[in-house]
């Protein structure tokens, strides 16, 4: 029997998602954002989700649409204020969604730590700022650091470029961003890829996310481009 993580239906990708789940969403702005999986999550209907992502969505597509459907109770991100953001802003101003602001590098490192079995680490980022309040401090070599804990998730929704049936992923340019580390940190990482390839086509030197961090894969060969979708006035669902 051969390992085969490839699925053909988005519903199958998201079959284990439950109400109250913590879900990491890859992407930095629109680059690497798994829009089709996010739309699948709207169709799925899971509620009370905690979303971990760098941003909080644009327009009414992808993450912006999911938040607009009121399926999200909390967002953990570095930058929830974007030019094209609508839905998060509306709910936040009404007090209907929680926000935890995390510096971008601390966010990345907390995600990587979760995937690497590191429950907590010290960093100088945010020392002396409002974001350090309540955090344990310690001095190393005369300099002050704060303790930051790992950020785990039940699921990660990720967009990659290529994958084989094992889930060996490569990414396209800066669409890499948070995607590889989220694959490490989630119990189930669910990947939409532009193109499936055969295992012998995977160059073992160039794999960015090895299959060990991947649970399910689906090919979406012509994914929605957020900028274009918003310009065209797309609203999901």
């Amino acid at each position: 029997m051969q390992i085969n993580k490839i699925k053909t239906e988005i519903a199958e990708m998201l079959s284990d998602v439950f109400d109250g789940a913590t879900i990491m969403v890859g992407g930095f702005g629109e680059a690497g954002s798994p829009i089709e999986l996010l739309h699948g999550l709207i169709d799925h209907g899971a509620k009370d989700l905690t979303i971990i992502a760098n941003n909080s969505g644009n327009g009414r597509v992808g993450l912006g649409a999911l938040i607009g459907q009121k399926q999200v109770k909390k967002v953990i991100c570095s930058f929830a204020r974007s030019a094209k953001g609508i839905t998060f802003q509306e709910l936040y101003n009404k007090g209907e969604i929680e926000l935890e602001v995390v510096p971008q590098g601390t966010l990345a490192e907390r995600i990587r730590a979760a995937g690497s079995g590191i429950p907590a680490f010290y960093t100088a980022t945010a020392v002396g700022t409002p974001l350090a309040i309540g955090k344990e401090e310690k001095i190393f070599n005369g300099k002050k650091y704060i303790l930051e804990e790992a950020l785990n998730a039940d699921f990660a929704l990720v967009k990659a470029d290529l994958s084989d049936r094992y889930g060996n992923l490569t990414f396209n340019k800066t669409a890499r961003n948070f995607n590889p580390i989220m694959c490490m940190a989630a119990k189930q990482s669910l990947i939409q890829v532009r193109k499936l390839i055969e295992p012998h086509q995977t160059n073992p030197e160039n794999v960015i996310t090895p299959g060990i961090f991947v649970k399910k894969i689906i090919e979406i060969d012509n994914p929605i481009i957020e900028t274009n979708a918003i310009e065209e006035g797309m609203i999901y669902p």
Partner: protein
Amino acid sequence: MIKKNLTNAEKGWERGVIASKIANDLPHASYVNLGIGMPELVSQHIKDDREIIYHSENGLLGMGPTPNENEIDFDLINAGKKPVTILPGGSFCHHADSFSMIRGGHIDYCVLGAMEVSMNGDLANWSTGKGIPAVGGAMDLVAGAKNIFVMTQHLTKEGKPKLVEKCTLPLTGSGVVSRVYTDYAIIDITKEGFKIVEINENLSIEYLQTVTEGRVYQ
């Protein structure tokens, strides 16, 4: 105290002039992160006697200029989420690796905007205390990069000093700024106060003092 409508004599350097002054202070072979907005101008003023490598915290080292309209790739963007290019010898990495470059002290210079800079080098540039709080990578950059340069107008739009004795806005980092480039002057952060490295040729030190909170000296 501070006049809202400055006379001709009190007009500061243009943005391009400030940018070129910063560009001249970045040594050959530096790894540099330019903050979103005004600091992005710096790359246009680098002279041929040096090669600078630009880091964008979203996983891009060796960032090149803005692409032509027909070369835009929505998967190749900078930290400001605008389309960019990559130069030969550039590379992509994931966010944890990218911030290892920052937090690990591998970025030689970071040029950022400011709302306030205090006499001891505190920087406030991420929050007015109102609206949705959003920090991005600013706190990581100021804590991690070897040298933090601030590029800013000397006064706020309301005509208030940005160089202050103590910041009133939420801090981005504490004691992190080494030098400030404004339209009025280049100023080093020192134990004795704001030290003037260069003052705009049209301004007096006395005037600079009136538009700066905290001691200015030469």
